């Protein structure tokens, strides 16, 4: 049967009116009904509180309903994306050993780790400061000759060292 669920079959107007009028009917013997119900309720005693098993079942049912509602509303994709991101982050952390670097960044490799162990206090800024004047790296020309070796070291002027003062 291929009925469009979004289009309910219409009823003839008269039948619809009859149905609506049924909705306005007052059931008979209201007082008698209420009195009998009261007697049965009293006889039934207080409602018992649900036990842990029933509560667990209710929680499970609620969880299942939420899951079903999510599935109906196509939220599985979102959940998959969240799980995917979590799995990627976990794998990344496991691959990097889970140790963040000094600056909060993960360590880049074992060489750096070893260098850090040898000179623990020598950071990039400190290494630069340790370099002495004239401790220049060799600069080579096209023929492979060291240019820096041929050129005399230019001494910078210093007010407290008399040799470095420029003579007019």
């Amino acid at each position, binding site marked *: *049967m291929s*009925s469009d*669920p*979004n*289009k*309910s*079959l*219409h*009823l*003839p*107007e*008269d*039948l*619809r009116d*009859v*149905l*609506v*009028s*049924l*909705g306005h*009917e*007052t*059931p*008979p*013997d*209201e007082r008698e*009904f*209420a009195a*009998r*119900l*009261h007697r*049965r*309720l*009293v006889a*039934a*005693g*207080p*409602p*018992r*509180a*649900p036990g842990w098993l*029933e509560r667990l079942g*209710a929680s499970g049912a*609620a969880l299942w*309903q939420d899951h079903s509602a999510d599935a*109906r509303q196509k939220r599985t994709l979102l959940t998959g994306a969240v799980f995917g991101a979590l799995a990627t982050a976990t794998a990344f952390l496991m691959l990097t050993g889970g140790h963040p670097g000094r600056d909060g960044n993960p360590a880049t490799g074992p060489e750096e780790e070893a260098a850090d162990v040898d000179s623990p206090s020598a950071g990039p800024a400190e290494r630069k400061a340790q370099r002495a004047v004239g401790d220049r790296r060799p600069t080579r020309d096209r023929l492979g000759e060291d240019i820096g070796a041929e050129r005399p070291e230019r001494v910078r002027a210093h007010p407290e060292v008399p040799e470095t003062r420029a003579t007019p």
Partner: protein
Amino acid sequence: MNSEQVEDLVRRAQQGDVSAFERLIGEHLPLVRRFARAFAREQEGAADLAQDALLKVYRSIGGYRFQSSFSTWLYAIVRNVYLDDARSRAGRDRAAERPLGPTAVDADPTADPEAPRADRRLEREELRRLVWDALGTIPPEFRATLVLYDIEGLTYEEIAAIENTPLGTVKSRLSRGRGHLRRVLGPAAPADRAGEIEAAGNSAAADLVRPERTEPA
């Protein structure tokens, strides 16, 4: 009754306060009883069924956790009791899908065109009885949806919450229930039947079996 009052009454009912429970269900009693009427053969049976359902509600109220509105929770339990009862009776009397015989309408004592006004009321009563009987032959799931929507005037969303089904299922059940009702009320050739009944002077009954008018798109 506002939500705080309902919450207070629910908590008292959970402690065993019968009067609080009676106040809580007071405004829902007519619906519960009419709903039962669609699942029972006669009025007395409907009263018994409604009592059983309300007793079940009372016994289960300790498990109400305010996750849905109280009326939704109440109607869901009531509906389940009615459906269970209908299923257990289904084996005993399987009267479903049987169109009402020609005598059901022709036997109407108000078929006389000269009928006075009092008889018109009787005619309406007879029609109502006919429709109640016809409702009783619809499969229970479709019947429950049809009663809640067409008779009680609940919305699709409310019914979906009560039945714990998607909106599409509610609409589908309603459509099937209506189709079933029309089949049960009318014979194979409704147009001929309508003419026949109208000729006998019963215009209201004739309208019931007349094929649906085409509605403008």
